[in-house]
């Protein structure tokens, strides 16, 4: 047993300055009159929010037009990203063993995994891509589309998860933000035929990072219950 663990066992001799307060009886209380959601109402809202987010991404992608070379390989790449997003979403919302959250290490690993999987698959799928020079002119349109696609779900997430997490709100909302950014990347990848790594990473991938940063900031300011 390490020194800290050994000494943790002897905490009991430290007197409690609030021992008398802890023994007080609770005053009689009535439930607050303010209206608050019940669990089933919240579940319905979450499902509705998820449906709206999906409709948003699919509708904007179809409106922009699907790429002409939508091969099985591209669909496979998109499927990997969809699976990554779904997994990250499930982990961000998972209540964990005690109903609070999964551990901070798990959240951190998953948060890093989302852009890592995106980068790895983008690099793998761009090996046989034709040479391409990245410029602001050719990146701007895709960056704009990704941002619009990801902004809708991110806005919904900010509304639905305002003051919703008792613990680790910045981490969990950063993860949700990254998933929203990834949804934009998926939609854009289904639209844009340019397969060069530089273009995919910058023009399609940047919204993942931006989404995670916005989510983390929102979580720190408005995410905690």
């Amino acid at each position, binding site marked *: 047993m390490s*020194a*800290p*663990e050994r*000494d*943790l066992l002897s*905490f*009991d001799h*430290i*007197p*409690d*300055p*609030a*021992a*008398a*307060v*802890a*023994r*007080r*009886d*609770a*005053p*009689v*209380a*009535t*439930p*607050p009159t*303010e209206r*608050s*959601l*019940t*669990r*089933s*109402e*919240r579940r319905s809202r979450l499902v509705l929010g998820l449906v709206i987010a999906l409709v948003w991404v699919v509708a904007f992608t179809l409106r922009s037009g699907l790429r002409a070379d939508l091969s099985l390989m591209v669909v496979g790449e998109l499927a990997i990203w969809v699976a990554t997003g779904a997994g990250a979403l499930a982990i961000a919302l998972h*209540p*964990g063993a*005690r*109903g*609070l*959250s999964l*551990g*901070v*290490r798990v959240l951190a690993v998953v948060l890093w995994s989302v852009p890592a999987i995106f980068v790895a698959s983008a690099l793998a799928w761009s090996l046989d891509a034709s040479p391409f020079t990245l410029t602001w002119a050719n990146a701007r349109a895709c960056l704009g589309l990704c941002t619009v696609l990801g902004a809708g779900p991110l806005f919904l997430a900010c509304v639905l998860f305002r*003051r*919703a*997490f*008792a*613990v*680790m709100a910045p*981490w969990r909302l950063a993860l949700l933000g990254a998933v929203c950014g990834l949804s934009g990347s998926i939609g854009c990848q289904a639209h844009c035929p340019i397969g060069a790594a530089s273009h995919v990473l910058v023009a399609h991938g940047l919204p993942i990072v931006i989404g995670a940063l916005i989510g983390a900031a929102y979580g720190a300011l408005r995410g*905690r*219950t």
Partner: protein
Amino acid sequence: MDETELNAAMDRYACGDSAAFALVHRALHPRLSAFLTRMTGSPTLADDLVQETFLRMHRARATFAPGAAVLPWAYAIARNVHFDHTRAARLRRTERLPSDPGAEPVDDAGSDVESAAIAAQAARTVEHVLARIPAAQRDAFVLIRYEGLSVQDAALVLGATPTAVKLRAFRAYEALRAELEDLRGVSGGGASERRASLREEEARDAGGSRAAKKGAAGSAEKRGAP
């Protein structure tokens, strides 16, 4: 009320059963009140923060997961309330009203006057040390020592790893133990003189510039620290 019943009551409240609020309130109020008193050092302020905690629990009842444990959840919300309060007030330590006596001392019923006075002083010392140490250390120590949470639950509440929480609690414990040992030495008599002579010796050995650091080093030497 045991923890299973309390969790079931909160579960019913999350599903919309308003009558379950009274049960949850009765079981949690003394614990949250004591927790926030330890955090703020002021029962008056703690009462206000407890009200805010219950209001937030009411607003967020739908987020209480089925089968979850209500205690860590409630402590996490209470900690958020305290955090928001200190951030808003931009105060490191809570200011007390002149009429606020501070945390109440340990129960002294049945003991003699001298031991009651010593217990009260020890409680006050603990309160002062808790107010002085970094918030992360105080939170970890209070949750483990006074609220009885496991290291894993405390880590979840604090959003840190169990190892980090253990270390923070241990550092808080060391600070408290040092102060309490000093207090015992003082009440045993002659400790302040010993401390003064140690400081004088140290000042003579180290010279004027190092004498400024005498407090920490002197007390560490006295405690037998390496």
